[in-house]
């Protein structure tokens, strides 16, 4: 990894509009110099931090659930058994049953795939579009930069969930809409981070030197700019996955995301509201699944930030960006 | 600690009452790092001690530890630092508050970061007198005006309401000096106060501190990486390397008869102008890593002499080479002052 560049004045920007995924300056406490990183290897460094390792373990479990869910779940997601409706947790139903007698454990397990898919696709959209826009803005400057960044400012003025709701209102509820809506909402964050890193790299002497000897823009982008933004982008991807999953859960909770009969954690919580006095297990377990998944992505994201993006966001940089 | 000579040759032969600060075998460790390794010196009342060393030599740590302005933990401080016979090292935070700002004033290296950006000059200048001396707002204000006048700030009344960012670097450092002197301290600690300033301002600040010291009878510890700057103010100089005093002598003696190869290197690296910005990096290499100090002489790997077989295996002890002159080397420490450089290599 090349040496971290001086962050541009936009350091804070990635967080705007979504404080949750923003650069939380506190946890960024670089313990290692970049040289040490390349020597020990990123993965080893990640695992050497116990907290990050715990996040990785949870993450692997969630992914296993998503992939192997069908074989792990003892019941189908929609196996209705009205006789055994609203049963508290027991040997037969680890997490109890819902109002239709469906097995909450099975539904929690089977929802993992949906949640991860929505998260991955949404962040994938945001990543591709955001990085492309950020590169254009940062590398070419001028009016494309102005238009792109002002548009990002505008999108940041809407709370994430509200914007997603508005998009759903237009396109109609459903899985695809949810992915598009969340993708759109997270695009500006990637655009801002990419632009900031690109601006910093563009001013570097070695990039100017490449330009001077006639290297094409494409070559410079591939050789110098992309490798430099990989660190911050990777970190942001992990953190965004966490909050994309949260956003999907919130949308589904509001009945605007994943639609029945497809099981989803948010939707399960929506259904659980009506039985909040009688069946606590319907509320507790799906929420716990969301919480642990989001926590895992956050822990891993924070761990990666310490390793890959070790520049300290000092108070001064935050101040300048205001 | 490694250095445990019972005698303190660095202290001038003055066991009478005119020693203000008497530091004995001071050591500082932070984790595995041995930052200060048995430093002893004393500051006479009204006198000025210059402490010279390049960055990483432990000079700031030494003085901050001696004056109790170091965070402990994480730092572990041992040895003694007697201010009028009271040991600062063992003081609790409450006792230290009675020393800091009241009996010992501090000026730091970078005036642009050492003043609080969100408070006015008046707020920063009056808080210590109001706390320590119990002055009223009005009295503290009057005192602040006198102080600004004393440090040479033009138009003090209008400066009271200024914020630091409205002042030039030199003005900021003058305000810092005023802050340090606000309660009439007996000792002024100046930690490279002129390094960040241009040459002219540097000279003015130096002159101003000298005047103030004489008019107030205050003692000064002046830390610098620049022998030239120190020569303008100190009566006595201690050269620090690897957290040890490698040579200590009265100012003239140090200049006319430097004994330690490191001191000689500093002399050679010094530009001819008295207040020029001397670069010490002319001696190739860098100070030892405090986490992995060598077994022998700390200067060994950079030493141009290295004549003695003990150099690599033993730490040279402090050796007196004159009534007030000590040096820590196996080479050049002879009382006759022979330069053995040619003979050994």
């Amino acid at each position: 990894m090349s040496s971290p560049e001086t962050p541009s004045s936009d350091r804070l920007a990635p967080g705007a509009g979504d404080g949750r995924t923003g650069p939380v300056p506190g946890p960024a406490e670089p313990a290692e110099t970049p040289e040490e990183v390349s020597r020990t290897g990123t993965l080893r460094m990640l695992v050497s931090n116990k907290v990050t390792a715990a996040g990785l373990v949870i993450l692997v479990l969630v992914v296993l659930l998503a992939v192997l869910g069908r074989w792990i779940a003892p019941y189908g997601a929609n196996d209705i058994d009205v006789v055994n409706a609203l049963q508290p947790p027991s040997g037969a139903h680890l997490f109890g049953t819902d109002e239709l007698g469906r097995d909450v454990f099975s539904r929690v397990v089977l929802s993992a795939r949906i949640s991860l898919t929505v998260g991955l696709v949404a962040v994938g959209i945001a990543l591709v579009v955001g990085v492309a826009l950020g590169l254009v803005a940062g590398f070419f400057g001028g009016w494309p930069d102005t238009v792109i960044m002002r548009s990002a400012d505008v999108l940041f003025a809407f709370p994430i969930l509200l914007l997603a709701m508005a998009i759903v209102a237009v396109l109609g509820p459903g899985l695809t809409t949810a992915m598009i809506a969340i993708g759109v909402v997270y695009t500006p964050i990637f655009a801002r981070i990419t632009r900031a890193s690109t601006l910093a790299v563009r001013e570097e002497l070695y990039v100017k030197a490449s330009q001077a000897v006639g290297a094409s823009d494409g070559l410079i982008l591939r050789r110098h700019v992309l490798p430099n933004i990989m660190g911050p982008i990777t970190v942001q991807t992990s953190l965004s996955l966490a909050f994309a999953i949260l956003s999907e859960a919130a949308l589904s909770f509001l009945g605007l995301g994943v639609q029945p009969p497809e099981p989803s954690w948010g939707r399960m919580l929506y259904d659980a509201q009506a039985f909040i006095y009688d069946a606590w297990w319907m509320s507790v377990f799906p929420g716990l699944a969301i919480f642990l998944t989001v926590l895992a992505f956050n822990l891993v994201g924070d761990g990666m930030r310490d390793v890959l993006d070790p520049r300290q966001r000092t108070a001064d940089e935050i101040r300048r960006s205001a | 600690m490694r250095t445990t000579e019972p005698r303190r040759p660095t202290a001038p032969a003055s066991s009478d009452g005119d020693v203000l600060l008497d530091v004995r075998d001071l050591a500082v460790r932070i984790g595995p790092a041995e930052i200060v390794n048995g430093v002893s010196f004393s500051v006479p009342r009204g006198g000025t001690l210059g402490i010279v060393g390049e960055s990483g030599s432990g000079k700031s740590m030494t003085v901050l530890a001696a004056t109790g302005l170091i965070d402990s933990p994480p730092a572990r401080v041992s040895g003694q630092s007697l201010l009028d016979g009271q040991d600062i090292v063992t003081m609790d935070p409450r006792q230290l508050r009675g020393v800091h700002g009241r009996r010992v004033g501090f000026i730091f290296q970078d005036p642009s970061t050492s003043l609080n950006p969100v408070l006015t000059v008046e707020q920063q200048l009056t808080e210590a007198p109001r706390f320590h001396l119990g002055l009223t707002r009005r009295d503290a204000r009057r005192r602040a005006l006198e102080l600004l006048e004393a440090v040479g700030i033009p138009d003090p009344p209008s400066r009271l309401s200024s914020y630091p960012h409205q002042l030039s670097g030199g003005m900021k450092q003058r305000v810092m000096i005023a802050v340090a002197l606000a309660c009439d301290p007996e000792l002024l600690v100046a930690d490279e106060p002129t390094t960040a300033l241009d040459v002219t301002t540097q000279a003015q600040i130096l002159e101003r501190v000298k005047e103030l010291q004489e008019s107030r009878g205050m003692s000064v510890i002046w830390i610098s990486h620049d022998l030239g700057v120190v020569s303008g103010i100190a009566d006595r100089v201690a050269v620090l390397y690897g957290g040890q005093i490698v040579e200590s002598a009265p100012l003239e003696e140090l200049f006319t008869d430097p004994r330690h190869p490191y001191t000689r290197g500093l002399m050679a690296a010094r530009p001819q102008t008295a207040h020029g910005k001397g670069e010490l990096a002319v001696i190739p290499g860098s100070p030892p890593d405090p986490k992995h100090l060598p077994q022998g002489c700390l200067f060994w790997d950079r030493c141009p002499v290295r004549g003695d077989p003990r150099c690599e295996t033993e730490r040279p002890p402090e050796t007196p080479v004159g009534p007030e002159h000590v040096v820590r080397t196996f080479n050049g420490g002879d009382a006759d002052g022979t330069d053995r450089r040619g003979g050994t290599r």
Partner: protein
Amino acid sequence: MSSPLLRFLVKRLLHTVVVLFGVLVVVFALLQLVPGDPVRVALGTRFTQESYDALREASGLDRPLLVQFFAYIGNALTGNLGVSFRSGEPVTLILLDRLPATVSLGLAGITIALLIAFPLGTWAALRRGSAADGGIRAVSQFGVSVPDFWLGLLLIIVFSTMLGLLPPSGYVPFTEDPWGWLQRVILPGLAVGVVSGSIMTRYVRSAVLDVVGSHYVRTARSKGLPRRTVIGRHVMRNALVPILTVAGVQAATMLGGLIVIEVVFAWPGLGRLVFDAVAARDYPVVQGTVLLIALIFLLINLLVDILYAVVDPRIRVS
């Protein structure tokens, strides 16, 4: 007022106006992007030709796009946000009716968030590396990851169902029954405040850490001032500058959280309103709410900028 402050504020105001214009474009575009005929979609099973024509004319949808756009902006600037597809009421009136509930919940949430973030963040920073620091960081990491609506459900289960201490939902205006309001605002306020507070705790911690390590705090300590003076006067005031910046950004998170929490707690504010409107495809109400919430966000950030200038003399005076 000195000129640097004025210049700063004018600059921020202009930026706000530019963003607000963009917000209006987005909000206007919402209706245009609805596939098919939004009025027909909105009316759904209630469709009759008369009601369709009436609604279409009332919302100006029969006019050319650019005319519609400028009419929308002109109307919006004069406080006319159209009429609800569902009830026919002016959207502005509906919004004004719902605003107090959201504001009161938002204030409760911010208060709780600040009560969490400032003490914990400062404490963790001042005892960096200690067990307390580790504990606070862990708890704030949990708080950042917890879905706020789930937290709301858990709070209801524990405090209403199990302990029977507080009402599970509902709203009483503060002006009518302060005590009743307080009882009902605690749980939703906690659900919003804990999440925002956790995020802010991390910012406060790092801001305080930055300042504590600064040279001017060393200067303050070298004056022998009592610890509480050093922290209160020198550390907190400076830490406030970066904290304020993130507080403005956090407003968006907070406003987003309010929407879903209002749904959980049946709190009749803007969040509940937009939720119902989205379900009913009442586009003018969706547009109006989105616009109002974005406006609130922009105003909060403008307010933060002003506070900023108050705290930091480098902006106020040159």
